[in-house]
């Protein structure tokens, strides 16, 4: 029973993500019943998996650990910002002391540090990160919530593109090991790794926007707008995934159980999907954890070049503006995404390779 469910859950997950992506990418509602059904299958399979594998306590402890890590990150960033030379309200022209006093009072900066710290941590528990110093009166939570959708969309599309191109390319190259196709694909992938985003992106714009006038160069308001940024952001991870997949497929193909599988007369496709792919995806997964966090929190360069209203601008502007609450907010958000994706990757590890015990 559990094996059947495990077999079903992964395709269901892929289907679910694909439908969601297609819906939001092309901007229409498609097959909501299918979406509900696959979602239910995934949830049920996950619950059964957790129950059968007895990883309840594991997940529980991982949550506690994640919580402690976030707490440590919050503390560290808080202290780091307080020991920084210079204050957030220092300006070229010195303000009168009464004004400075009022500002300090408004943002509770005149209180002793431990009190400020206590207030901040207490706020974080209720998802209240305070008010921005720079955009006066705007709550950080609201600012982050406003710019998250664009970044997350961009990140997820790029991630899917990276996996859709990277894994097949890697498998293909491995199957043509040391032949022309392999060399060509690996040349492309090394170029993908070596070329910086701000070289790829302008070249794409030069070709598709200025030369052929096919696609819009900037903004984020529809399918046509998504294509260029997603291509530019997805290239590098796709190239890395292709290289990782190729290397690990080559290693797996050489192992005994593949020879056995072939010897007992399994078809090429069955060997590929049942044995090769499942075993060679482990190194790719390792890379996926940090990748997800990196992509979801936005690419600074891409968002700047294409004028996408995403999170990335806060990462840069908060520090240069010394907007302390915003710095803390983006840092905690990034850490939370990173920790969550690492947890998911660890669970997927044991799904792909039951020899890896979660404990």
């Amino acid at each position, binding site marked *: 029973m559990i094996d059947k469910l495990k077999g079903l859950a992964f395709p269901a997950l892929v289907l679910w993500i694909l439908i969601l992506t297609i819906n939001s990418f092309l901007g229409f509602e498609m097959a909501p019943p299918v979406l509900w059904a696959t979602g239910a299958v995934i949830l049920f399979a996950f619950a059964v998996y957790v129950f059968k594998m007895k990883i309840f306590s594991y997940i529980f402890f991982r949550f506690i650990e994640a919580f402690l890590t976030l707490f440590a*990150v919050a503390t560290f960033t808080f202290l780091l910002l307080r020991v920084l030379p210079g204050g957030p309200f220092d300006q070229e022209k010195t303000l009168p002391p009464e004004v400075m006093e009022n500002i300090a009072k408004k943002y509770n900066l005149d209180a002793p540090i431990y009190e400020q710290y206590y207030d901040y941590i207490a706020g974080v528990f209720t998802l209240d990160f305070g008010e921005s110093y720079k955009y006066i009166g705007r709550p950080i939570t609201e600012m982050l919530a406003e710019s998250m959708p664009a970044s997350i969309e961009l990140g997820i599309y790029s991630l899917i593109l990276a996996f859709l191109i990277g894994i097949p390319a890697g498998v293909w190259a491995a199957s043509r090991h040391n032949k022309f196709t392999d060399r060509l694909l690996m040349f492309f992938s090394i170029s993908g790794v*070596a070329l910086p985003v701000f070289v790829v992106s*302008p070249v794409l714009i030069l070709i598709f926007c200025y030369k052929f006038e096919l696609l819009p160069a900037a903004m984020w308001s529809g399918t046509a707008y998504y294509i260029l940024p997603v291509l530019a952001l997805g290239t590098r991870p796709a190239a890395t995934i292709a*290289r990782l997949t190729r290397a690990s497929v080559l290693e797996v193909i050489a192992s005994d159980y593949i020879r056995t599988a072939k010897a007992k007369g399994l078809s090429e496709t069955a060997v590929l999907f049942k044995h090769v792919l499942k075993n060679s995806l482990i190194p790719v997964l390792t890379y996926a954890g940090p990748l997800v966090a990196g992509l979801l*929190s936005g690419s600074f360069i891409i968002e*700047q070049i294409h004028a996408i209203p995403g999170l990335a601008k806060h990462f*840069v502007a908060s520090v240069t503006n*010394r907007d302390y609450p915003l710095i803390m907010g983006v840092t905690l958000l*990034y850490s939370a995404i990173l920790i969550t994706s690492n947890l998911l990757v660890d669970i997927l590890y044991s799904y792909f390779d039951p020899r890896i015990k979660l404990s």
Partner: protein
Amino acid sequence: MSNSLNQPSRSLWQDSIYRLKKNKSAMVSLYFIIFLCIVAIFAKFIAPYSYETQNMDAILQGPSGKFWLGTDSLGRDQLSRLIYGARMSMAVAVFTAVISLIIGSIYGAISGWFGGIVDRIMMRIVDLLFSIPTLVLMILVKVIFDSLDLFENPELKALTSILMALSLASWVTLARVVRGQVLQAKEMLYVEAAQSIGAKPMYILWKHIIPNIMGPVIILLTLQVPSNILFESFLSFLGLGLQPPFSSWGVLSNEGWALMKSYPHLIIAPSVAMALTLFAFSFLGDGLRDAFDPKMRGRM
């Protein structure tokens, strides 16, 4: 077969260098990098103009006999700025790699060698640094160093703050790798042998462990240099790294990108230079890995 048996035996290093020499793409890359270093070091003698000389009567010109790669919006010679940019980019990348190597290997070696509670605490700190976004960390460090006023010379000041920002953000990876290597090497029989004849821990660390883990560390360093070049240009591109009139490839890309629609030649030159350099370092890194550690061939 008998021929190969009669050959004089080669040491591990000779063997590796032999393998490296047989790898054509790695050797071409090595020559290119050496060429680049020479250009960077002797930029003053090679560049036809200075990086800040402005020719107001010749702004935004395309490539010509006088200005081989054209001029920018202030009439500065693009080729000279590219050459000086190579100097800045390479200096930042190489020094950052060295600084992060020193910090990272000391930290990683101590953590891996002592193990136990020391290792746990030290690795928790590394994990903490990992969960803070790199860009935020780099900009924070840069803000601190910018406000310190360590040097009078503006060029030196700009260079130190970006060096510090990049190294403090990148030593963490090296520390992790070195720790892993030390943990592995610690279990080796030669370490046990050294311990049994009464060698002191520091002596073993210095004489046995460090030489044995140099291979992977050198490879990682070759891969670290291009990623430093990238990060420096990221920062400069965002306007947070070096500022004009100083020239680095990131600064040039930033300037070129602003005028891309009308004057594409300004973005092409730095892009090509950067792409070639990053290519060369990737090929050299791959070649070194294959040469030092044939078992690792093909892995990342």
